[in-house]
């Protein structure tokens, strides 16, 4: 069942224009573990990306966020959230979810 929309806001580290393009082309969103954590997760804000938030991406997914989410934050942890896959790149583990619709507003 489609979940969302969710959005991520442009930032200089984890949501750059380059990353947005990769997300758009790959059909996936990846997320690293937080500092000190071994558990990678994709994290996003709920709702559409409104103009006041600036640049970013908006997406829907068939994967339901984990129960540890809150009204203002959605998260998909690898291992704990059914449907989340593990990706590895340059020795790092990433949680990965597939999007079902995607708007790139980080040109």
């Amino acid at each position, binding site marked *: 069942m489609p979940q969302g929309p*969710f*959005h*991520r*806001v442009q*930032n200089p*580290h*984890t*949501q750059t224009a380059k990353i947005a393009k990769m997300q758009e082309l790959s059909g996936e969103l990846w*997320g*690293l*573990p*937080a*500092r*000190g*954590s071994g*558990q990678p*997760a994709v*994290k*996003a*804000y*709920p*709702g559409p990306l409104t103009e006041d*938030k600036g640049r970013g991406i908006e997406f829907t997914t068939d994967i339901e*966020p984990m129960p*540890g*989410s*809150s*009204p*203002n*934050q*959605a998260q998909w942890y690898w291992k704990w959230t059914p449907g989340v896959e593990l990706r590895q790149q340059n020795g790092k583990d990433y949680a990965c979810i597939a999007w079902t619709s995607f708007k790139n507003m980080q040109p």
Partner: protein
Amino acid sequence: MTVRVLRYEPDIDVTPHAIIWRSLRYCTLVIRDGADDLDQYKGASFAIGNDIRFDLRVYKGHIHSEVTVTLYLPEDVRDKERISEIVAIAIKEMEIPVTAVAWRRGQQFQFGKIERSPQDRLKEREARVLILKIAASQPERVATLDTLRKEVPKFFDLSPADKARSPSRKNESKWQIVVRNTMSSHTTGTRTIFAQGWAKKVPNGLKVTRRGMDYLNSIGFSDSSTSDLPEDV
């Protein structure tokens, strides 16, 4: 119990467990910038005793980010009862009224929707601590009634009930009466900030004492050294 401000971020992932309808500035002056995989944020870290650690954060993209703060616990705290217990302790020890809790773990929610309790408005008990916080943020820790009236709306999201006109003083809102009463000399109960020794009266206002600063440190609002302050000021 004392809420201690921690200088460093937790070295473990954190999970959101409550949303409080108060600004970060209302809760603490010790605010730092941070960033994680979600986004950039402003936040603060706290400890109560040896067992409880929690963070207050506001991410740039949070809804109602100007007037709410989200309480995070270390990701390894997963027992529902323990989560509920820690959230309750943190809120109580920071002197945040229960009515300010807009959501807490265990309550159902819709993504992107947070509602403030209709009962949440400025009452005298909270106003006592609020004016102490505001005065402590001013030069020399002194605030006049005029200063308090200017600053209260910057610290506290006034509800429609707060802004309603006072039935007794037609030219003032209810929250202004609450602040006035909290400051007024006829309020002589044992729980006033003056009776507690947290503040003393100065012309047209109040000054936070060393004991008052110790109190604000004990609820996580500040972590300033008070050792150089004289005992009586």
